[in-house]
């Protein structure tokens, strides 16, 4: 296939550095999250339709517990402020501060997940018990998966921050991305909590 796309006779070319584009990863993440939020939108809509079609919600015998999830909610929502402190720290070139606040966020995220698992283990119903529990486990489970991914991102930032100079006031896109993702997970939880718990109990 000489002469077509497929041949090569010349030595390697460097791409001119001046023409590489700016870092667009934050844009990419925001676009992705806009899309991702519609997946939850699909679950929320499905939930509302199923609830609207039910004679009784939650079905008889299904107790929705409120204390633990409320505490969990407080932990997750405050962690959104904590992670922001880490971002503020790195903007002042304070890597130690970044690490401190991100470790704290990771701890709070873990508490949330452990609380969630504890709730699963102690509830009187399982995934297949009834249509409410179907929705409950699917939606919280899916959200929990996202918390887990957010946790991995935070741990990734912490791992990289061990290397001096990896993050600085001029260069911290990774830090920012983890923070944005964490806020996203938080916002989804607030909607979820309102739909599944508050509006079910009251």
């Amino acid at each position, binding site marked *: 296939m000489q002469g*077509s*796309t497929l041949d090569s006779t010349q030595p390697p*070319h460097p791409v001119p550095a*001046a023409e590489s584009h700016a870092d667009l990863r934050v844009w990419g993440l925001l676009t992705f999250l*806009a899309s991702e939020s519609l997946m939850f939108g699909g679950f929320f809509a499905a939930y509302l339709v*199923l609830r609207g079609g039910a004679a009784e919600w939650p079905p008889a015998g299904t107790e929705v517990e409120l204390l633990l999830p409320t505490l969990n909610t407080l932990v997750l929502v405050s962690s959104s402020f904590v992670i922001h402190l880490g971002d503020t720290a790195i903007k002042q070139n304070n890597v130690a501060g970044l690490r401190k606040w991100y470790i704290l966020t990771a701890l709070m995220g873990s508490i949330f997940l452990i609380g969630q698992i504890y709730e699963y283990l102690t509830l009187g119903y399982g995934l*297949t018990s009834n249509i409410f529990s179907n929705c409950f486990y699917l939606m919280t489970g899916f959200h929990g998966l996202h918390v887990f991914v957010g946790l991995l991102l935070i741990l990734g930032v912490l791992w990289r921050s061990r290397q001096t100079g990896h993050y600085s006031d001029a260069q911290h896109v990774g830090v920012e991305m983890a923070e944005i993702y964490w806020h996203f997970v938080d916002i989804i939880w607030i909607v979820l909590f309102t739909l599944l718990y508050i509006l079910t109990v009251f």
Partner: protein
Amino acid sequence: METQIISNTTSPTSTATEHPAAWKWYDYFRFNVDHKVIGIQYLVTSFVFYLIGGLMAMALRTELYTPDPDVLNPNLYNAFMTNHGTIMIFLWIVPAAIGGFGNYLIPLMIGARDMAFPKLNAIAFWLNPPAGALLLASFLFGGSQSGWTAYPPLSLITANTAQTLWILSIVLVGTSSILGSVNFVVTILKMKVPSMQWSQLPLFCWAILATSVLALLSTPVLAAGLVLLLFDINFGTSFFKPDAGGNVVLYQHLFWFYSHPAVYLMILPIFGIMSEVIPPHARKPIFGYKAIAYSSLAICIVGLFVWVHHMFTSGTPPWMRVFFTVSTLIVAVPTGVKIFGWVATLWGGKIRFTSAMLFALGLLSMFVIGGLGGVTLGTAPFDLHVHDTYYVVGHFHYVLFGGSVFGIYAGIYHWFPKMTGRMMNERLGQLHFVLTFIGTHLTFLPMHKLGLQGMPRRVAMYDPQFVNLNHLCTVGAFVLGISVLPFFINAVWSWIAGAKAPDNPWNALTLEWTTSSPPPVENWEVLPVVTHGPYDYGMGYGVSHDSNPDANDSSDDSSAPPASNPILALD
């Protein structure tokens, strides 16, 4: 050939990267981040799936030659029917039109060296082959039986393992499509060469932007629906089981909230291709640039609010029927705007009947038939009578075959020289066009009548009164099958031994024609500077210094200074 480098950026990604001067053949079979390689990978892979899906279609039509199920076992018929539709939509048209042309062309059209996220781009492509493998593997478990729409309860009670593989496959291509769309949106919005105004952005780029936004907004909702279906099949939930508090129509809403926009995913990029192919081959500026650009965005928005026209017979309440009838008729308006724009572009043009142009003209005529059929279907009182009959099959094949597939062919004939550095054979192209044009009408026109007479779709057998028209359809399907041969021979032979292509064989004015054919790995040695609009034909631009025997009718541009390249001012 060193270029002068002015270092003016402190971005963290601005380290110079080493790459070879050109890719070797085996680079096309590997993980590669160059958008041009990825574009060709998408095109070739999806074409392979097109052939597989096409063979399934011919098996279906063979079965339907006679009223009785005498050739295929009815379950196998269902599996072929399901996977034919799934493959054609998710593994041929979507990846070819968006992944293939989008990836290859977007950076070249906006003067960028690559997409915004090259690695993500490659990952998105490589999700496709395993998705196809899952579909094919599902045949080991009987093949999914419930059609490309996978409605419960059918999808819950037939071939569970195959249906599960089907779901996983669609989730993979859906993920691929979301990742690809993220890349397109960011690339188009942020990476235009600075000298290009928004009003100089080629219409194909507007189309891909609208397509990507639509994919981003609708695909995740399908994913949500399919996850629920997966749980119902495998983990004992009852989201779609009415006897346990679930709701079957809910699935249809989730499905069509994606899948109506999906028909625009399959046609908007094609509209973009039309806007690129028609002006250079008619030697006229596009008529109504702004109207065509904005109508893509209008389709993108209105198209999100018409999905219930697929569900008029699903116990839909009257207010919904009225609302969605009206919105469906409204969405046909921006589509019509485009059609008029192209017709007005052709009007009085110096039309060159190249293979690309033949397919574009064929598309125009067929899409009008398909679109008008769509408008009739969008009207609830009519749809109640023909829903789930062959009338619907006729409609969507006119838009999908006569529209999307014709557009992909037009695009291939138009950009093949750029992609491979070789010209395609025009004679074989004409033969290909004639066979495809006749075959499409022969196969799908009679289906409208069959549908009006009440022949139901998706069944291996039918009432003997329908036999004559079905003979026509089956003969047409074989003409279509044969029509692929001249194309295939042409593409393979031309790629290996076709005449060398000049940089700008069609004297076109968009930026991809300002670089060599095929382009170097970094697209341009020095980025081009845009000095005129993408469709300023007949205004003295665009006389290329390549002499080209196939396109020596640039007389309309004779006012341009010869032997220079006024397309761009290289610095």
